[in-house]
């Protein structure tokens, strides 16, 4: 029995192997898209830099008409409705290809008219009047009116969504006196109201969402945006097609496909092989020079607003002493971190939190790295190494502790190691503990609720770009009331910080807002609830022959509505 079964299998083996090889290996010669870019490559043999400009501008207008633009994203964003998308970037940006907001952030993150062509605020800051365009239609042809806006805002208020619902809290009433006018009355003045919700919350069609009891179950993606979601294959890709009758003009790329590529190395390999034309992921520093030398690819560079911090638990001794935090901040060589770990692709952290590219950045004279000055601060505060073990102490409390870091993030891990080594000569001993991200989160920010307390000494931390884009969110980093200081993971308590925050939260006047931002910046730089280490610069690689109209939105990246519309080109 065994014999009769084995024999045919033995004979089939070579045939089977041959079949597999032929079936798979034979294909590529004929119709493979990756083969297309390579014949073009050998031509600019001598000076690619000089050749590039003459080659690049011509095909851009012709190429998009035939081939879809392929932009790799990292993971699945669900059915891509306002209740199912997953990430702030690129999920929110993809959502906004399909939907529109009342205002829109331009490349400098300043709110501009969009669905609303006019936005006026009463002198007391309580009444916001928005005048809508009268030429906007939903993808199904129906007109978008003030009733849809009123419905959307009330729907988000009633159906909790973590990004849309909290900013609705300040709105007391919404009126739609005529088809193009919306009047919102606020309970208190709200300085960031234009950023969030007006330029953030997508408007949804009343005729589709009305009566939905489970918003997550709504599958329709009818919006008013420049693109329609034409296809979604879970774990594989999204396909967007242009909305030719878009009110701001038809978008410049007729079709966008966003394949999901989970492994970063594969994304950049696919970019080189020509399988994709761009990606939402910034190049890791070690690949930048490599890609700069690639004649077929170009880079969009700009500031990144994701912010890397050394976070203190300010409730725990000795990290509760401002002098200790100041000394540590002075003893960290931020430029060296950038040069060593980011290979120069970064911006030195402002000890006062705000990115130097932010409109509210004012602290231009931050103290530089100075180990001797740091030592002097500790000497003066009474910390000395009494027992000769290399660690300073005062009142029996040694300057030593555990520095938590995500084990899966090489940049933060290397930063932690360099910082720990750099603090050793200061007499501060940090033990770097690298564990899985969830375990770090569970200690630093249990259940993502600062009211639940914390159990750590120090941690390497990172806040994503939106926390910088809306300057007012800095209040959330330092305010001692957990319902306001929702991001105050270090348990920082400072009456002055609370006072500035409380004032800023209800200030309408722009000059006053800026002054308060400056005060808070100076306070953070002096008290240092955390050390702002650096901001990783963005390096977005793309294939100019496929599309070169990318717009870099400050701090965020290139994948947004702005890149596909002529209306908001700077």
């Amino acid at each position, binding site marked *: 029995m065994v014999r009769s079964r084995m024999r045919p299998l033995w004979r089939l083996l070579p045939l089977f192997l041959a079949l597999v090889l032929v079936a798979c290996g034979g294909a590529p010669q004929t119709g493979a898209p990756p083969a297309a870019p390579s014949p073009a490559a050998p031509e600019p043999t001598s000076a690619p830099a000089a050749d590039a400009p003459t080659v690049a501008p011509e095909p851009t207008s012709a190429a998009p008409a035939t081939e879809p633009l392929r932009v790799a994203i990292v993971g699945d964003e669900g059915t891509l409705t306002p209740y199912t998308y997953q990430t702030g970037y690129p999920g929110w940006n993809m959502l906004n290809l399909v939907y529109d907001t009342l205002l829109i952030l331009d490349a400098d993150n300043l709110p501009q008219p969009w669905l609303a062509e006019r936005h006026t605020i009463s002198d007391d800051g309580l009444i916001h009047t928005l005048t809508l365009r009268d030429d906007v239609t939903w993808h199904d042809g129906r007109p978008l009116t003030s009733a849809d806006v009123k419905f959307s805002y009330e729907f988000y208020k009633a159906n909790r969504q973590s990004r849309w619902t909290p900013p609705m809290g300040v709105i007391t009433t919404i009126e739609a006196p005529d088809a193009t006018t919306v009047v919102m009355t606020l309970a208190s003045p709200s300085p960031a109201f234009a950023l969030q919700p007006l330029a953030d919350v997508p408007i949804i069609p009343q005729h589709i969402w009305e009566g939905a009891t489970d918003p997550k179950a709504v599958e329709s993606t009818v919006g008013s945006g420049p693109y329609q979601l034409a296809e979604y294959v879970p774990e594989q890709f999204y396909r967007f097609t242009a909305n030719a009758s878009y009110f701001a003009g038809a978008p410049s790329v007729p*079709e966008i496909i966003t394949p999901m590529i989970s492994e970063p190395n594969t994304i950049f390999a696919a970019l080189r092989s020509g399988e994709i034309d761009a990606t939402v992921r910034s190049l890791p520093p070690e690949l930048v020079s490599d890609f700069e030398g690639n004649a077929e690819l170009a880079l969009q560079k700009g500031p990144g607003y994701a912010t890397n911090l050394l976070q203190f638990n300010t409730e725990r001794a000795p990290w509760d002493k401002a002098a200790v935090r100041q000394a540590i901040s002075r003893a960290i060589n931020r430029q060296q971190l950038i040069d060593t770990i980011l290979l120069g692709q970064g911006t030195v952290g402002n000890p006062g939190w705000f990115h130097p590219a932010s409109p509210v950045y004012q602290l231009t004279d931050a103290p530089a790295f100075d180990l001797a000055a740091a030592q002097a601060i500790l000497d003066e505060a009474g910390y000395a190494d009494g027992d000769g073990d290399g660690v300073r102490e005062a009142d029996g409390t040694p300057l030593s502790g555990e520095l938590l870091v995500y084990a899966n993030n090489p940049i933060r891990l290397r930063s932690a190691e360099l910082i720990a080594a750099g603090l050793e000569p200061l007499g501060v001993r940090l033990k770097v503990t690298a564990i899985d991200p969830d375990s770090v989160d569970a200690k630093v920010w249990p259940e993502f609720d600062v009211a639940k307390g914390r159990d750590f000494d120090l941690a390497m931390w990172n806040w994503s770009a939106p926390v910088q884009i809306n300057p007012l969110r800095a209040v959330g980093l330092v305010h001692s009331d957990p319902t306001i200081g929702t991001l105050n993971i270090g348990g920082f308590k400072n009456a002055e910080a609370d006072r500035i925050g409380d004032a800023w939260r209800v200030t309408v006047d722009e000059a006053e807002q800026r002054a308060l931002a400056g005060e808070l910046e100076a306070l953070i730089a002096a008290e240092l609830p955390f050390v702002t280490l650096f901001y990783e610069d963005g390096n977005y690689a793309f294939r100019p022959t496929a599309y070169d109209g990318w717009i870099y939105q400050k701090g965020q990246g290139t994948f947004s509505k702005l890149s596909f519309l002529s209306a908001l080109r700077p």
Partner: protein
Amino acid sequence: MLRLLLARAAQYLLVIWAAVTLNFLLPRLMPGSPIGLLAGEEVGQLTAEERAELLAEVGLDAPLPVQYARYLGSLIRGDFGYSYQRNQPVTEVILQRLPWTLLLSGTSLVLATVIAVTLGAAAAWRHGSRGDLTLVSVSLVLDALPSFWIGMLLIAIFAVELPLFPSFGAVTAGGRYEGWAYVRDVGRHMFLPLVTLTLTNLSATLLTTRSAMLSVLGAEYIVTARAKGLRERTVLFRHAFRNALPPIATLVGLNLAFTIGGATVVETVFSYPGLGRLTYDAVLQRDYPVLQGAFLLTTLVVVAANLLLDLVYPLLDPRIRRGAL
């Protein structure tokens, strides 16, 4: 006999129950919580009441024993729950990915087994020859190489330098192929992950086959068979290989079981939409229902593979037949 069968069945049920319990407990013992997944990106903005509501919606507010009882109850009703992340029934989520895993891992299992058993038997037959030494060394090297490294290397060579094969996905994103063109598209996308997975899975089976064959080839009945003047092929296949089969079958059976779990690393490197990546994402995101569903499927297949092996052994080795099941 019936009694034995019943005892066996009870044994399997016990194993499944233990696995189900572990599948329920382990994810909940991990640090972290699915609150981030349930709330969405701005979880920090939610008030304590809103968090409590969110957890209550999916029943995570109940004490563990209650959650456990509910879970067992729904399992018995055939209800595998709803994914926190995907707003889809778990069964649907798994069924979307299962075909891709079966295609990739299943093909690789067949390929790796056929190649490894052939080469392993050949190596044992020519024990000590240069071919044997080469095969053993290559197997050991392959065994030591991490699969993501092999995968990245293949991508660098066959997708970037020589753009012959796609580096990601199961089909061309947005491609509208049908019929043969579709089959070819799937084949082209499967090629690099298949080679990676097969290379990774080759060595264990090859080395096992080789050593099983070696132990048999030294036996006296082989000497007898040769002394009778039987042809070498007959000795190899009828006498030696057949007796070397049980350990090989065990290994292949286990591989079969793990195949369903999906090839997490290879699926991640090549962004292949299979079960391994699904499970990995679910672990990272604390998507308990998906985790439970995926682990349960693996459990059932492991048990089924064991059952299959129990049934196959007596066919392979008559000595086991006497001991019955």
